């Protein structure tokens, strides 16, 4: 369950890091920063969803209401 999420995030991470290096070469420093920020926000959205799922699972499992 969710194994594709791992590869999706890994893909985003690698693409963002490569693109930011390319942008740095092209003297577009601010674009690189914005791209990194966008990458982190995208990954955060996915992670937030999974963490919510984790909390729901643990809450029902251990009756942590």
């Amino acid at each position, binding site marked *: *369950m*969710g*194994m594709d*999420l*791992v590869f999706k*995030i*890994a893909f*985003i*991470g*690698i693409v*963002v*890091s490569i693109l*930011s*290096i390319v942008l740095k070469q092209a003297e577009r420093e601010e674009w690189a920063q914005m791209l*990194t920020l966008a*990458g*982190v926000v995208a*990954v*955060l959205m*996915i*992670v937030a969803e*999974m*963490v919510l*799922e*984790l*909390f729901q*699972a*643990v*809450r029902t*499992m*251990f*009756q*942590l209401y």
Partner: protein
Amino acid sequence: MEIFQVVGLAVVSVVVLLVIRRHRPEMAVLLALVVGLVIFFMVAQRLLAVLEFLRDLAARAGVDSLYLNIILKIVGIAYITEIGAQVCRDAQETSVAAKVELAGKLLILVLAVPIVMAIVEAVLRVL
């Protein structure tokens, strides 16, 4: 068996983490958290089965379900605290991890108070 999938996923993820950590440390922390969650969801069904078995055992042994619920709550809190503390340590924020663990310990202590009271009363009744 799931263990092969878990180990396979862990090895692949560690390699990817090594690549990502050099350029984007913040992505590596998030990816490490996601890998941990995926592995947890893989074994969650087995954990549920074990918990059901524990409940049946407790019911058969006549143990009051209140105590078992408290113990399960404590295990849940400890597990979530551990996840949070590990994420903080992954990001080299040991001070934040220490605070998370402090909060977890206090919450567990609060939950354990009724059990301690029950024990003390039982002992006093005997004396």
